[in-house]
């Protein structure tokens, strides 16, 4: 039942470790299998583990066809006793985490490797858009075939007229993330971005312009979920899971998307973590377009609905700022590696709260919120997830 109040079990004794990012490339001749293998190997190596130690495996990818997680087990030589395939795009990081954590907590698996990765061939983006979902195929792709650019342009247009947001407000998010990306050696975007450049960029699907759009790339991200005692025994930096939520097809009666599923569950997330918005040292939102990051500031409780524009005018979203946001540059500046875009914030947040983020490290970061958003099934993102994690910090 929606709205139930019974307390959920916490995630005590389960931790996140061994964050891994395979550096992104704009186009790749390799397959999703290749990219996922690289990230998995990197994560296991950093934890001093071999593939035989993995008894749980969770995969998110759009470009594995005709394979699923099943084919990957044989392909990669894994023999897991717990297997998951999460087709939730941008929400997959939070969802992978909470499912894997419960498996470890229940003893169904000892070490779950969560991996997301996709390849980007020269024509793969067009192919994916034309058959992304049945509703997209039937009711959005035939209308200009603008893909997510056009869908988010509609949401952005409506948000701007409803709340008085300006292009400059969205520009603040993009410019700050580019600033963060310049600290991240793996970010695809390497040049600074000024507000004038942002505002002067060519329109892609009004009011969405070039720097509001992510660059589709190839890449992969991974992390491990295991028992705290095992992580400690191995000497690994780790993060606790203090709470998590997920929701699908929230508010179907809204005529156009003005809020995501977080708005249904955010109080539960804070209650579970025994935390408040002020306790977050940093926030990783899902940022395929800046409007959705702005909605997350609102729906995750950092400001009231409609106050997003004021919030970004008053806060500094850079690594050194008073509200560090998407510290690796996010998808907008680091690139969107398909389903790995649903992991980028989680992997970076694990690094941040374990003090291992290197050049993008937020000073003194111990607690982070990570939120995910995915799957424009027709006119709006259907999946949402969020988690609060804490580590020992720097």
């Amino acid at each position, binding site marked *: 039942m929606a709205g139930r109040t019974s307390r959920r079990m916490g995630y005590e004794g389960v931790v996140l470790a061994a964050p891994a990012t395979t550096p992104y490339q704009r186009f790749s001749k390799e397959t999703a299998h290749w990219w996922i293998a690289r990230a998995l190997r990197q994560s296991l190596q950093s934890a001093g583990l071999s593939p035989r130690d993995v008894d749980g495996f969770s995969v998110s990818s759009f470009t594995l066809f005709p394979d699923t997680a099943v084919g990957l087990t044989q392909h990669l030589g894994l023999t897991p006793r717990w297997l998951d395939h999460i087709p939730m795009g941008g929400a997959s990081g939070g969802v992978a985490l909470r499912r894997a954590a419960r498996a470890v907590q229940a003893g169904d698996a000892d070490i779950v490797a969560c991996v997301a990765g996709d390849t980007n061939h020269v024509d793969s983006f*067009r192919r994916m858009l034309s058959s992304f979902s049945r509703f997209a195929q039937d*009711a959005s792709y*035939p*209308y200009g075939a*603008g893909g997510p650019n056009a869908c988010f342009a509609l949401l952005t247009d*409506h948000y701007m007229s409803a709340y008085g947001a300006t292009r400059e407000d969205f520009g603040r998010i993009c410019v700050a993330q580019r600033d963060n990306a310049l600290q991240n050696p793996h970010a695809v975007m390497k040049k600074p971005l000024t507000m004038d450049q942002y505002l002067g960029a060519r329109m*892609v*699907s009004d009011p969405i312009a070039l720097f509001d759009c992510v660059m589709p790339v190839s890449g992969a991200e991974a992390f491990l979920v295991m028992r705290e005692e095992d992580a400690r025994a191995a000497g690994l930096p780790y993060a606790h899971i203090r709470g998590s939520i997920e929701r699908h097809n929230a508010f179907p009666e809204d*005529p156009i998307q003005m809020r995501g599923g977080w708005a249904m569950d955010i109080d539960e997330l804070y209650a579970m973590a025994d935390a408040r918005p002020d306790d977050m040292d940093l926030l990783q939102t899902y940022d395929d377009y800046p409007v959705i990051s702005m909605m997350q500031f609102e729906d995750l409780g950092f400001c009231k609905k409609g106050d997003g524009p004021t919030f970004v005018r008053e806060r500094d979203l850079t690594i050194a700022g008073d509200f560090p946001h998407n510290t690796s540059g996010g998808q907008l500046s680091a690139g969107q590696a398909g389903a790995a875009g649903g992991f980028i914030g989680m992997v970076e947040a694990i690094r941040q709260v374990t003090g291992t983020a290197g050049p993008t490290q937020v000073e003194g970061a111990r607690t982070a919120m990570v939120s995910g958003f995915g799957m424009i099934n027709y006119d709006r993102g259907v999946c949402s997830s969020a988690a609060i994690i804490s580590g020992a910090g720097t």
Partner: protein
Amino acid sequence: MTDAILPPPKKDPQKRTRTQTLPSGLRSRAALGLTAAAAEGRFMLQVCGECGALQYPPRDACSTCLSTDLPWRDIDPAGELIAETTVRTSTNTYFRERTPWRVGTVRLDAGPSVMCHVHGDVPRGGRVRIINRLDKSGQGVLYVLPPEGTPNMEDDPQLREITADPKFRRVLITDARSENAVALAEAFAKAGASIIFIGEPEGWRPYPHRAALEAIPNVQIVPLDVTDTASVAELAGEIGGKTDILVNNARFVRPGGIMDRGDTVFARDEMEVNYLGLMRLAQSFGPAMRGRGADGDNSAAAWVNILSVYAYSNMPAFGAFSASSAAAYSLSQCLRAEMRPGGVRVMNVYTGPTDDAWHQPLPPPKVAPAALARAIVSGLKDGLEDVFVGDVAKDLIERWRTGAKVLEREMSETDGGGA
């Protein structure tokens, strides 16, 4: 305000003719219900047969009560444009070649929000009405118009992509001798067709309305006998590359069924004109038209067949003619499939008995040539695929949809069961 399109310049024969690319034609089976409604220009959505909830996008189960009984119903097309964008870059070649392309979200007064193509004259955030039409891939799409007409609105480039407006287009009407020819030529002249070719069989034989035809602006009478393969091929060689709309108007009609005709002479004539005539025209003119679907403002746009509605269900009093119409109807479906890659529409206009010599003994209502011509031109302006003209045709198709077998039994009454 829409800019009026200008008369297209004469084509430079050295320039490459643009290949027709298409918007995505992939649809689920449920979504083809929208296409079926668009073929007749109706705005229909699924309405749950149990709880009455409106569904969009098309579904296999009701999103309110999970009922799988989701019949399509005509829906109030009024709504409000709550968001819009102009797509300036697209992964699809068809749209990429036609950007900027306006798209919006409309909240229907009836409930759901729908993504639509948006006419250039629709004001931001304004009241709108939705039409459901076939796009170049022959699939139903929703298109937003201003609540009332605006100057030159039919010239909007996005709208012209989903219509087959005769304005500035070159039309070939077959069978100058038919009583319909004058009314058709007048209607196309009024609709702004730039040239109206009229195919004339047996030119040596006089017929009463030739002078009237010649008096219509932009009319050119050309020799064409659809029962003669050489004649059809010769004319196609001359004007096939500039025929934008072809109206297959030739019909051979005689009363009678099987046993009251002692031989197959008329039956053969009916098949020669009504069935093989269509085949000959399509073999000669079809390839050139299919290749010119994207050839500028006067691209090839539509093929029109005038068919008897008794193609659907045989009327024994004209039983052999009905059979030839059924053959032509079936062939038109094949032609439609073959024309689709070129984005050229095949519009069938179904009529009941027409007001002419061969239907003289039948009681009214009968379809007058002017009414038939009006239905054809307005069907082209709306970009339709199926038009039922006159009360008899409309009544018959309703009865056919309700129960083809019941209709067959009704048709066997001597008066056609009132049809």
